[in-house]
């Protein structure tokens, strides 16, 4: 046979084998390929403003278990002593003196003496106004003075004293001024501090509120199972009821998680570069689960908080107030529990309720309200436990106790360390003051993990290019095998 003839027969064999090769490999690809998944940070990784901090679930876990460094009373007393000494040598209306007034005032508040800080800050405000300062320059004065006034007078207001209530209102007004002059300060803490003060003021007139809502307006008088399905989730009418109990609305068609992923990849997953793509990602916050201001909240006279909020907003404020304010507090624990439950973080919620029960005696003066809080926490914990494996449930309480003890031990060692250094005459303002402590201790903050990521399945058409490539290569292989076999056969047939 001629070379041409053999070539034709070989090409024919290759062509015939190519088609079933393609079909077969396409079939193999489809049967052997599972769903392809991708992951993207949950939408709360986009902060409220480009350079603000964003929330992590580990932050909530850490405040509940006291896993953060916290100064002791010795630190604040020493700082006050040094500040008062320094004040003698600087003009009373200088910027340096204004900073020292804040340090002394916050120290007094931390030491449980907010009333002593009020005249100091009133004096500071007067001096600032005499100097013609206004707007943002008065921010810390408004915020601190408002806080000290609220702290001093809230107990009287809760006891029903009308002067106490008036004073709390004055404190709230000052806090509102601080928000006006600096709306994005410190995770929006002032906003939620105002909400808490207004809520407690409202509860002083109607204590039943304390058994119906947490301070952001999450209902606490309904079982979780009922809450999920009850009519009041109708506030999600433009979204899906299925989203209740999740941290985001990703995957429901309201915000495109794939577009967010593209933007995230543009900045290499570096949150510090978010401002570069801010206009493209700010809308992602619409996918954050909303909490608070639930059914009947409209009747509660908390004017600063009328509708639901993205859950990370009050959470960051609570964490900021906890860490930089007065520490553990049953109102915060309850609110963390309710919010974490609503975003599907059942384990964090369980620990928040556990801590809340420990602090219940500080919730409200009336014992029956304290008991109602304990009962509520018990009931929520039981509901959570029903959704967890039995062996995990058995370990929840021992794990909580161990971890809280770990955090408290860390804080005690931190405070003992600073007290010893101060006693030894070390300069507390030295930036290396804590170096030795940090060398001896591992970082206390919990690592973040997969709970921060939304994992989604890529659409099936995303695998088309890969499938086509695989199909073609299978076809080429079959064509090659058939051509080679045909050419071998013809080689043998063709005698020289």
């Amino acid at each position, binding site marked *: 046979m001629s070379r041409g003839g053999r070539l034709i027969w070989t090409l024919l064999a290759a062509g015939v084998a190519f088609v079933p090769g393609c079909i077969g490999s396409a079939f193999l690809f489809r049967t052997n390929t599972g769903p392809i998944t991708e*992951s993207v940070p949950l939408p709360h990784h986009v902060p409220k403003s480009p350079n603000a901090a964003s929330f992590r679930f580990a932050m909530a876990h850490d405040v509940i278990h006291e896993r953060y460094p916290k100064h002791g009373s010795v630190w604040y007393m020493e700082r006050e002593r040094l500040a008062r000494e320094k004040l003698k040598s600087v003009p009373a209306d200088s910027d340096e003196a204004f900073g020292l007034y804040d340090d002394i005032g916050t120290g007094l508040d931390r030491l449980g003496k907010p009333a002593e800080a009020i005249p100091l800050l009133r004096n500071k405000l007067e001096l600032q106004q005499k100097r013609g300062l206004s707007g943002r320059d008065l921010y810390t004065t408004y915020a601190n003075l408002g806080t000290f006034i609220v702290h001093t007078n809230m*107990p009287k207001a809760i006891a029903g004293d009308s002067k106490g209530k008036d004073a709390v209102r004055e404190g709230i007004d000052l806090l509102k001024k601080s928000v006006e002059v600096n709306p994005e300060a410190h995770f929006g803490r002032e906003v939620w501090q105002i909400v808490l003060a207004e809520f407690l003021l409202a509860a002083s007139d109607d204590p039943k509120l304390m058994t119906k809502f947490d301070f952001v307006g999450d209902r606490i008088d309904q079982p979780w199972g009922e809450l999920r399905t009850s009519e009041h989730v109708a506030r999600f009418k433009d979204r899906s009821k299925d989203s209740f109990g999740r941290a985001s609305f990703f995957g429901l068609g309201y915000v495109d998680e794939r577009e967010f992923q593209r933007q995230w990849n543009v900045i290499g997953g570096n949150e510090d570069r978010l401002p570069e793509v801010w206009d493209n990602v700010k809308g992602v916050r619409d996918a954050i689960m909303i909490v608070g201001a639930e059914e009947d909240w409209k009747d509660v006279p908390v004017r600063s908080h009328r509708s639901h909020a993205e859950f990370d907003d009050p959470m960051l404020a609570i964490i900021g107030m906890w860490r930089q304010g007065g520490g553990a507090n049953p109102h915060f624990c309850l609110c963390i529990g309710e919010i974490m439950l609503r975003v599907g973080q059942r384990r964090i919620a369980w620990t928040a309720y556990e801590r809340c029960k420990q602090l219940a005696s500080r919730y409200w003066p009336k014992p029956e309200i304290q008991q109602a809080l304990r009962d509520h926490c018990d009931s929520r914990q039981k509901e959570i436990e029903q959704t967890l494996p039995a062996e995990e449930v058995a370990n929840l309480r021992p794990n909580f106790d161990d971890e809280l003890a770990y955090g408290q031990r860390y804080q005690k060692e931190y405070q003992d360390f600073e007290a010893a250094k101060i006693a030894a005459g070390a300069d507390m303002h030295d930036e290396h003051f804590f170096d030795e402590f940090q060398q001896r201790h591992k970082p206390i903050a919990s690592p973040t993990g997969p709970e921060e990521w939304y994992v989604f399945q890529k659409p099936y058409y995303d695998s088309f290019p890969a499938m086509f490539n695989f199909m073609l290569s299978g076809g080429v292989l079959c064509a090659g095998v058939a051509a080679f076999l045909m050419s071998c056969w013809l080689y043998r047939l063709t005698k020289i």
Partner: protein
Amino acid sequence: MFRLLATFACLFALCGVASACLNDSELPGHEREFRSSYKREAPPAPSTDSQPSSNTPLVLYGTGGALLAGAGLMILRRPSTKA
């Protein structure tokens, strides 16, 4: 007695509300430290266990191509003959 109870009640309440935004010279440093404590970790790898290796098509192309070349060689090696 009532006064005593009221005092205790106030003390309890004071503890309950002692929480807020205090602004002092340490705050900016604390906030920086706080943010850096929670640096993001790498995302979990996409679950591609059941996907064919990205090298598989290359191997198939290579093998198929080599066989085609071999077939061509076989054709070229034996000259045409008359039937």
